[in-house]
């Protein structure tokens, strides 16, 4: 029985791949779009019923790779699969008249396979393969509508994704070498803690995964790429795919051994991101951009806590369950919020109020509103975050709340009297429900105490930044204060312009150089050629032959006698 159940792990990856290949059959594209929800089902089942910590060896695949579901991994896997499922349901309706169904179904399923695979890989090679899959093949999803803005966003995404891939690859190489060539994730993680391992390994891994997870200076792709994709794709990008980066950090950071330098840097960057990104979100004009920045901010929170734990050397067991729960909540909630963006134009007046209400609850939950799931997961995370971290987390409720308010404010309008499609609404509501309910369900398992046992009063008192936020919002609304309009991807524009200028300059320099090289070639030859002709004419003379005959005779004579 156990063996049968653990076979769900390979199935979780292979099944979406099979669906992807089916979508290549001529004419099957639209059909496969309607079947999108099927993809994550084995993964979902695996997350629930596959026994934990039982490796499944895959002999002959890659470098004798394997799959294994850890407890943390199961939470990531379950959350991601759930999100993918409902996003798939949503997409099946949302994209029913899409012009490129084949491309969407193909890459959706492939990215899905990679995304789920990341969470269950047992060795670094498989991990890297899945990571590359999810990372690079998400590009076609980003540029799905082929609009110029999307294409630009895709390019930025791809460049940073490739950079991230390379950083991770090199980091893994260094770490694996430190582990004596072992490729098991456990062994590699242990090796990262060893002083003998190349110090760059940890840094490269953090940078690589940080790119994926939107670590602050490396986040520039995220606010441009996530909004560019179709709504369901944005939902999984922000809700599930980003988590691959987080999971990478979770899987490889050598928690338990203090790594002060790396941990501190990670913490500082991440917490900066936590606040800065939320503030940047305020300046965004698009709802999806706001959400993307919010993702950067929330992931900053997660990584900040990770960084703190890394610096302190806290044991993984104290941190990971809470962290996994937080990401689960964030993933589902963020997914629902994104789906809400797609739903908004279809909601006539009454529907809109309902939608806004649900979204507001979700936003409040993200901000850590008391009694909501968000507060629960945040409170769980405060313990391992240390005193400073806990304070910062508490404060972040303010910025998150502001960002969420901004989101609600810029949510697209709809024509009156429109009704949301049932399937899309269903997916949205299911996700929202899961986001709000699942943390409560799982909390007991992970924290070894009932969620009701938490100090509810503390939750409420800790919510003062929320109150402040409400005041601020109300004030701003009253005064009519408008936030500044900021470009998506903040620092990206100037950097791109510099890079373009540099490229042009380098090209010109190179061209000039090669031209000057080419020019400096002399042309002699004619003189020598004439000389050679003359020499040859002399040799043809009989007289010359006679003289040479005497000369050779003399030479031999001389050489023998000397």
């Amino acid at each position, binding site marked *: 029985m156990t063996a049968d159940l653990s076979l769900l792990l390979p199935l979780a990856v292979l099944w979406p791949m099979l669906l992807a290949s089916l979508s290549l059959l001529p004419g099957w594209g639209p059909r496969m779009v309607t079947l999108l929800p099927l993809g994550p089902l084995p993964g979902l089942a695996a997350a629930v019923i596959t026994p934990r910590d039982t490796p499944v060896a895959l*002999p*002959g*695949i*890659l*470098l*004798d*790779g394997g799959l294994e579901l850890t407890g943390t991994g199961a939470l990531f896997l379950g959350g991601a699969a759930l999100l993918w499922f409902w996003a798939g349901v949503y997409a099946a309706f949302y994209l029913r008249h899409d012009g490129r169904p084949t491309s969407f179904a193909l890459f959706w399923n492939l990215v899905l396979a990679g995304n789920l695979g990341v969470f269950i890989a047992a060795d670094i*090679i498989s991990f*890297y*393969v899945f990571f*590359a899959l999810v990372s*690079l093949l998400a590009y076609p999803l980003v*540029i799905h509508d*082929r609009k110029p803005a999307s*294409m630009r966003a895709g390019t930025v995404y*791809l460049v940073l994704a*490739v*950079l991230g*891939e*390379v*950083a991770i*690859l*090199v980091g893994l*190489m*260094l770490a*694996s*070498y430190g582990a004596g*060539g072992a490729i098991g994730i456990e062994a590699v993680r242990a090796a990262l803690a060893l002083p003998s391992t*190349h110090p760059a390994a940890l840094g490269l891994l953090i940078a690589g995964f940080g790119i994926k997870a939107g670590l602050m200076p490396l986040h520039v792709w995220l606010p441009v790429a996530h909004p560019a994709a179709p709504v369901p794709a944005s939902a999984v990008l922000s809700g599930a795919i980003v988590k691959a980066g987080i999971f990478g950090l979770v899987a490889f950071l050598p928690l338990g051994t203090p790594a002060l330098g790396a941990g501190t840097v990670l913490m500082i960057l991440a917490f900066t991101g936590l606040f800065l990104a939320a503030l940047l979100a305020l300046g965004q004009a698009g709802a999806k951009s706001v959400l993307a920045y919010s993702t950067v901010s929330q992931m900053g929170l997660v990584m900040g806590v990770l960084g703190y734990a890394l610096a302190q050397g806290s044991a993984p067991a104290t941190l990971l369950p809470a962290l996994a729960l937080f990401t689960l909540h964030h993933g589902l909630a963020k997914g629902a919020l994104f789906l809400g963006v797609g739903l908004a134009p279809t909601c006539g007046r009454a529907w809109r109020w309902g939608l806004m209400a649900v979204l507001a609850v979700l936003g409040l939950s993200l901000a850590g509103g008391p009694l909501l799931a968000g507060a629960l997961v945040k409170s769980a995370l405060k313990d391992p975050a240390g005193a400073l971290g806990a304070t910062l987390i508490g404060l972040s409720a303010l910025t998150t709340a502001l960002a969420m308010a901004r989101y609600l404010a810029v949510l697209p309008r709809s024509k009156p009297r429109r009704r949301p499609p049932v399937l899309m609404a269903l997916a949205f509501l299911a996700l929202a429900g899961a986001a709000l309910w699942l943390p409560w369900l799982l909390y007991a398992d992970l924290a070894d105490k009932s969620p009701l046992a938490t100090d509810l009063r503390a939750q409420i008192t800790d919510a003062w930044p929320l109150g402040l936020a409400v005041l601020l919002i109300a004030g701003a609304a009253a005064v009519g204060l408008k936030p500044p309009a900021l470009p998506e991807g903040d620092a990206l524009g100037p950097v791109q312009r510099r890079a373009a200028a540099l490229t042009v300059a380098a090209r010109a320099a*190179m061209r000039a150089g090669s031209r000057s090289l080419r020019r400096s070639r002399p042309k002699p030859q004619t003189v020598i050629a004439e000389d050679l002709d003359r020499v040859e004419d002399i040799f043809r003379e009989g007289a010359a032959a006679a003289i040479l005959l005497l000369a050779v005779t003399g030479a031999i004579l001389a050489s023998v006698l000397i």
Partner: protein
Amino acid sequence: MMTFAPLLLVFLPLVAAAVSFALPERLSSWRNAANLGVAFTKLLVVAYLLNATEAGLVFEWRYEFLPDNDLVLRLDKLALLFVTLSVFLWLMTTIYAIAYFDRGPNLSRFFGFFNLCVLAATGVAMSGTAITFFLFYELLTLATWPLVAHKGDDKSLRAGRIYLSYTLAGSVAFLAGILWLQSLVGAIEFAAPPDLTGIPALTLTLIFILCIGGLGVKAAIFPLHGWLPEAMAAPAPVSALLHAVAVVKAGAFGIVRMIYDVYGIGTVADLGLGLPLAALASVTILYGSVRALMQTDLKKRLAYSTVSQVSYIILGASLIGPYAVIGGLVHLVHQGIMKITLFMCAGALANRMGIKAIADLDGAGRLMPVTMAAFSVGALGMIGLPPVAGFISKWYLGIGALQSDAAWVVAVLAGSSLLNAAYFLPLLYRAWLLPPPADRPAIRELATTRDRMLILPAAVTALVSLGAGIFASLPFSPLAWVTLIAEGGYLR
């Protein structure tokens, strides 16, 4: 069978060559049948040999060609690695070439020399002595020249001239090197490396430089690579099989033989020759990538990419570590399969749609999706993205570099990956995402048998390069085979 198996491998392409030369142009279908038949037969022979060699048999054929200088064809595991690669790709390329040329002029000549090239590549692989190696190495040079010059236009003739001047100068240096060494230690057998003790280090170094310099021309190491991009004037099947695989690999293979079976890693390490060679290979890797980035012609870009990629093999060999040599040798196979995919696709694009410049690639994916899908797999593999095979090589090379205390090589690998991405991804972008020009007529990619023969070989090799990555640990996968080789003596 024991002794004549190597001879059979050489003899089969000779038969195909003779038949091709002899048959007049109008009997093209007979010629095609003969070529395919022989190629397929050879594949079967190789399959049998793979099995037998894995069981530990070593096939050897010996002939005293000059006093004290034996012509030895020896099928050890390393030889069989190269033989299998060339035989498999030969079959693919033959199918491809038949479709590519269809009924063009001078095909008897083309297929004749084509078979001679394969003969030479097989011989290079199986050579058991330095002299045998040199014989086939030169034969390869000669048999390739008419193929480079096949079109007969000024560009091709120029390319042929450049090709010859580089390779002949190289082989002369190589010959001088091996003769010098032979004058010191007697005939050089790969199976029994010579005893080099007592020879001054300077002499050994000079000989090494001569040999590597000579072999490096074909392997297109940095200052000696100039012929390769020029040789792209040749027809696509030639670029595909010969320049991506046979010729450059012969050079790289020779360097592996030099380091491991002539000098021995101990001597190379003692003389401190590995590091400079690794440095040179690294320079080549980066230089080739940068130059590839600057090309506007599709085949030229691929050519510079070959320059860069082949040096991975040399890098692996020169780093002298267990993982590094595995990485280098397995790249011999992986690069071959991936690059031939790319070249066959490039040829198919040129053949069907006249696409030669990179700027013309717009929308190619929409018009020829199978071709471009195969191309994409090859390109992603070249970048080193898993699960395509190129990743496996890169992984082993990286770990191997670290084992040899050469962490800077990892930086080179990373830089090269980025550069590869920089010059391959724009191609994929154009092909898949940009709309085709309005004046380009729509075509049906796989309409006729000929179209299928043109495109399916590339699809097959693309799948194989995927498989070689995904199933890297299965028995008889390139990686497993190379590991066998390495365990059989290259890990000293």
